[in-house]
């Protein structure tokens, strides 16, 4: 056996009950502030002012726990969760980099946590300065002219960009005719979903067999006077940079369309490529990927939309401005696409991203992309030595940028073991399962590890050794892989509720109804 030894790892396995199964009637984990007697005397039974039919009869069936029980329960659940801080974390397409503790500590200051969004701007100059400066820095990083920090995540930013494209054509009186957004199948799925939600018809281009991205001719035959724009990711989640990008932009501009490039994978091009310089009209960054804000168990994320000058009038309101003395919100934008959510964006994340940039500095950002790409190609070299692993488009793109999408098709054909099994088995070694691929699976049996700049070389070596071992197991003892995981918090899950309305239960109350039992 290779060096991918079992280390004796076993995940914490508490068999923790659902919170509703814990506690005891009459317990309480929080004491509500008192009401002064004078208030009670003056107001009386206030609840009886609510008409009978709108007055709650039965209290909600929430659990009843004391504070120590609540704490223990959620600490146990946290122990059964695998964060970036827990171990080797190479979930691809997400730039799972380490989030500096300094930034978290700053974002938990009452000086940002305890301010209300509608306070007079004179009383919130600090946070506004941070937002304003951060917008400027993103302009410098992207070659764009103006930014909005309002979107709550990447797909929201792409929705915002689709709506800006819509507003642009509407103002030009061309929206009725221009109702098509072109995307590429290897772009993140939100480049299809978000424009469709904004009312566009979506045309999808497929990659050329040799290059891994669409042929110029394919785009030429897709564009027409119906083209509203091109919305795609570059660099791709395959780690390939679509070097036709300049040509695509020209082609789309020639027919009067706009181009929005999803910069979710910007980590590997920081300080090396500015998509605005290449000619894109719009772009977006994910602060929870490139700019190190923690992923929070799936959010809150945060994203930023960047546009060229001609499109800035369409940005969501308000935009943070500075008049030389004072920072303020500019709502006076008659062509704006309006509000995209409550208030102004995910401010704690904006602060964390600001802190990250100022810590890294210009030199640190350049080194970020350098080290991330070295890490990835080092890992790539090691993984290609694993039996059963291949790299599609490997001939035309032997080196990749921030990540690489591999295939286990050969392993599957030779052993019956595919990526789903490998992902179950890898957990037994104290690693997290790997990103496979967004849909559709253009590459069969895909996996996409991404080792950002914060990953030590030792982690890369360990990952490669573990995959060697699992591959060997697949060839010699496939049963152990098929029946995995063996060392996780739980055994194999019954997935039937995923698609069976009689079995699915998204709440405890639904589960009790459907199983007709009180608790098991």
């Amino acid at each position, binding site marked *: 056996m290779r060096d991918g030894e079992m280390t004796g790892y076993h995940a914490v396995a508490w068999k923790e009950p*659902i919170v509703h199964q814990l506690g005891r009637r009459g317990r309480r984990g929080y004491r509500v502030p008192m009401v002064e007697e004078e208030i009670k005397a003056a107001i009386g039974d206030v609840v009886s002012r609510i008409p009978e*039919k709108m007055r709650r009869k039965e209290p909600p069936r929430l659990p009843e726990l004391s504070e120590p029980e609540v704490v223990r329960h959620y600490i146990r659940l946290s122990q059964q969760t695998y964060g970036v801080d827990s171990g080797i974390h190479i979930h691809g397409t997400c730039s799972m980099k380490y989030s500096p503790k300094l930034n978290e500590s700053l974002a938990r200051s009452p000086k*940002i946590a305890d301010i*209300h969004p509608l306070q007079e701007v004179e009383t919130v100059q600090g946070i506004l300065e941070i937002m304003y400066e951060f917008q400027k820095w993103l302009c410098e990083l992207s070659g764009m002219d103006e930014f909005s920090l309002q979107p709550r995540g990447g*797909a929201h930013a792409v929705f915002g960009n689709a709506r800006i494209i819509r507003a642009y054509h509407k103002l030009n009186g061309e929206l009725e005719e221009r109702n098509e957004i072109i995307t590429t199948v290897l772009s993140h799925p939100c480049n299809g979903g978000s424009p469709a939600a904004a009312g566009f018809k979506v045309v999808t281009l497929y990659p050329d067999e040799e290059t891994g991205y669409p042929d110029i001719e394919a785009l030429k035959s897709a564009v027409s006077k119906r083209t509203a724009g091109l919305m795609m990711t570059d660099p791709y989640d395959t780690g390939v940079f679509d070097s036709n990008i300049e040509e695509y932009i020209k082609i789309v501009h020639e027919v009067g369309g706009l181009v929005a490039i999803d910069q979710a994978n910007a980590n590997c091009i920081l300080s090396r490529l500015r998509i605005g310089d290449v000619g894109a009209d719009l772009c977006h960054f994910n602060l929870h990927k490139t700019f190190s804000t923690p992923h929070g168990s799936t959010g809150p994320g945060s994203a930023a939309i960047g546009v060229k000058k001609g499109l800035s009038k369409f940005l969501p309101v308000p935009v943070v401005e500075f008049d030389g003395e004072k920072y303020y919100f500019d709502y006076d934008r008659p062509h704006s696409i309006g509000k995209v959510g*409550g208030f102004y964006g995910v401010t704690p994340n904006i602060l964390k991203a600001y802190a990250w940039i100022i810590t890294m500095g210009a030199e640190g950002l350049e080194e970020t992309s350098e080290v991330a790409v070295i890490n990835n190609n080092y890992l790539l070299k090691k993984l290609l030595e694993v039996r059963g692993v291949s790299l599609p488009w490997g001939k035309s793109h032997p080196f990749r940028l921030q990540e690489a999408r591999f295939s286990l098709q050969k392993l599957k054909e030779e052993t019956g073991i595919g990526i789903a099994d490998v992902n179950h088995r890898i957990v037994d070694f104290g690693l997290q*399962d790997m990103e496979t691929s967004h849909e559709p699976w253009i590459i069969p049996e895909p996996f996409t590890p991404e080792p950002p700049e914060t990953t030590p070389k030792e982690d890369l070596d360990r990952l490669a050794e573990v995959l060697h071992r699992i591959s060997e197991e697949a060839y010699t003892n496939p049963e152990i892989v098929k029946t995995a995981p063996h060392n996780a918090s739980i055994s194999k899950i*019954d997935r039937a509720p995923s698609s069976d309305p009689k079995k699915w239960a998204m*709440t405890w109350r639904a589960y009790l109804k459907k199983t007709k039992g009180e608790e098991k």
Partner: protein
Amino acid sequence: MPVNPYMPNSDPEMKKQMLKEIGVKGVEELFADIPERIRFRKRLELPSPKSEYEVRRHIEGILSRNKTCSEVLSFLGAGCWPHHVPSVCDDINSRSEFLTAYAGDVYSDLGRYQALFEFQSMIGDLVAMDVVSFPWYDWQNVCGDATRMAVMVTDRYEILVPRTIGPDRLSVVRAHCEGLADIKLINNDPEDGQLSIEDLESKVSSKTAAVYIENPSYLGFIETRGKEISEIARNHGALFIVGVEPLSLGVLTPPGEYGADIVCGEGQPLGMHMYFGGALLGFLACRDVERYVSAIPHRLISITTTERKGEWGFTYVLPERTMFAAREKARSFTGTATALWAITAAVYLSLLGPQGIRELAEVIMQKSHYAMKRISEIGGVRVPAFNSPHFEEFTVNFDGTGKTVSEVNKALLKHGIIGGKDITKEFPELGKTALYCVTEIHTRADIEKLAGSLQEAVQ
């Protein structure tokens, strides 16, 4: 420049060794896919790297220019409400496993799935609905999702919303429905604020996909005729959507019990600090009907069992329905959500329990009604505009004082008080009006101080 503390492999020797193992002479070879003519070859005009101490000094210096709501006495709400955050909430959402996890499968992230299932469950308890989705951005965005769901379920293209809807919500709903469905406003009764049944009946039709109400309304009063409105919607084959502030459900009938098909709302009051409006948490619930569930754009966690007795497992429901799998065919988007806040809300609701949330809602009502009473004693001030029970927010009208809200608020600020939100432009029909918010954090002394300062401010 010393080695960067966040990059283990940034030591020059290490880089050299790794490049050698890769088999290239220099790092530039790895970027060969990017054509030279589009490469950026200058130094970014950004600051130089800094140490942790310098960054802390710098940022704390900037942040010191913010005045917090504990340094002044604030009566602002309007979609971001001041509540006490139990220490346990901050403790749990600082747990680095929850803070730094993302998208692992159940076998590595069991605890995250369970906590989020518990969030779904407790929101279900509050609103009395069986299906609750993965958390989302904010009330505005889930309200937009709810209206799109109604369009998909009914194949109809008109949404009726109350004139008193929160303006941000209206803007986001319009954005979500642009080019898909028409939004029509239903008037409210000028006396009690309640949705006008007459106007609703004149506008509802076989084209109506959904009737939406907010309870409590944006202007703070409680909409008391939920059942009646739901029956009107049902009689026309339209869905009934209710938007809620969740703490009010300690005392208000849950929408699931007065006919709601879809419920949406804002979870920020459930243990999140205000964060300048940057810690919002949308929740979305619906009846357990397959075609409703199929129309939800977001992830859905179901509880399930495993091979071993005594273990709970979790699994995503109908994953093929979302944008992740269906791409443009989903006609919706989802993605990185607000899970850390949802876990916090689960912690908050477990702490309060059934009795705690009822008591809290009652305390809030007592205090807000006391504030209304005290402010109404000031000459020329009319509070509230509507003769209905209110929850935590209420309107204060200054027409009789000759002052504008902005003038009053400037005067209050001199007393260290932040007055209510100026809604004169949002609701011109209400005159010079502010929206005040009083919660459990306000003491009697705070309310007296407000009343005294207002008295001075309007003179």
